[in-house]
């Protein structure tokens, strides 16, 4: 399969109706993300980052505009194909980790592989490898509540990688972590981006994340304010 962009949005718009008022959460957002790129989405709280991610991941339908994942217009997909996309193509990382509390680390990482019908032996083997990759091999049988925030986010990253996705959507992955832990997570994401050639789209308002990004999209009130490349940022530091 050949495609031009890993993710492309065209005039993507999402309005919410709240009583009499219309909230323009995302408005006319057009971005192109290359395969293997690390793109950061910077914007204050309420600027539309989460909404944009929901639209790209096919979790919500846009008011207007289109999303293409590897040239496929996701509005044309049926429920089965959308589930397939979420299972195989896209890995999610959330600000609040969202691990399943009753499952251990390795069970959490295995879960998306169950959905993808990977045989048990293979599942366990791969989950262990992934947990090793994120540095949690000695915590495989711990439940989320027995892990620190940073460790939980590492499990979530391993889970996002379970089915070898080509795109990772990370919605403020360091938002609930202290500075140092957040930095470690950021570097882990960068390492995954480099090693696996995964496209990473990461929402943040943490300036520390800028140094690992190839490009930064600034969003405000649902609109793109500016797009900067890494070289530009370096020069102007």
């Amino acid at each position: 399969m050949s495609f031009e962009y890993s993710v492309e949005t065209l005039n993507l718009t999402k309005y919410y109706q709240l009583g009499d008022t219309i909230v323009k959460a995302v408005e006319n957002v057009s971005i192109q993300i290359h395969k293997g790129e690390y793109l950061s989405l910077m914007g204050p709280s309420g600027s539309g980052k989460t909404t944009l991610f929901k639209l790209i991941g096919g979790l919500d339908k846009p008011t207007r505009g289109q999303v293409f994942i590897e040239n496929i217009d996701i509005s044309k997909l049926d429920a089965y194909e959308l589930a397939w996309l979420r299972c195989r193509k896209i890995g999610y990382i959330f600000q609040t980790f969202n691990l399943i509390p009753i499952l251990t680390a390795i069970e959490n990482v295995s879960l998306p592989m169950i959905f993808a019908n990977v045989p048990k032996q293979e599942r366990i083997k791969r989950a262990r490898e992934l947990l090793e990759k994120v540095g949690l091999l000695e915590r495989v049988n711990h439940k989320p509540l027995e892990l620190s925030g940073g460790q939980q986010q590492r499990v979530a990253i391993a889970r996002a990688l379970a089915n070898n996705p080509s795109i990772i959507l990370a919605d403020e992955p360091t938002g609930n972590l202290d500075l140092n832990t957040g930095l470690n997570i950021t570097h882990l994401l960068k390492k995954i981006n480099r090693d696996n050639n995964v496209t990473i789209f990461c929402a943040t308002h943490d300036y520390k994340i800028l140094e690992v990004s190839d490009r930064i999209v600034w969003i405000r009130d649902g609109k793109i304010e500016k797009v900067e490349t890494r070289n530009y940022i370096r020069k102007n530091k």
Partner: protein
Amino acid sequence: MMNEQVMKHQLMKVSTKDLLYLTIQNMRKRRGRILLSIFNVFLGVALVSSMMILSSSYTYKSNISLFVVNLNEYQLWVSIISIAVCVITIFNSMLISVAERYKEIGVMKCLGARNILIMKLFLFEALVIGMIGGFIGFTIAAIFTLPILAIQYETILPFIMYLQILFVSLLIAITISIVASVYPARYASKINPTDALRYEV
């Protein structure tokens, strides 16, 4: 739309074995509520099976070794009411379980779980609850009716009749449990992942 070959190659049908694995895992980890549901099925079924056992002693005495439901009007009403109570309690407990797992279901959908899988998870749980509850209910009924049969009717039922009653009891228990869970399971499968993850920030 999507590359058909790729889709077929990576069929996302979760095997029954994995489904059972997920169900058992969930049940093991939420033992309290599950035990309550099982207890509930077992009470209802114990009552109904013991009445079936007692009433079938008539048919046995008249030399028919096939079990025939032979409840009098009073017994029939008690059975119907106890089954109805059972359905309502399990329905309630399943709805609570869905509410408890609301966010979890949202996450699972984000990770690519299909609606049908979520639905099957709850129905499988109901199936297991029904089977265990039904079996225990029948066993208790069989044991407790033994002295009554012996003293009052001066008889013991043949094994084959017990087997027949066990079969009917299990059927009733599973039906109760599944019927009560259809709506909660459907409701769970329709949960919108964005609503479930709404309380993020």
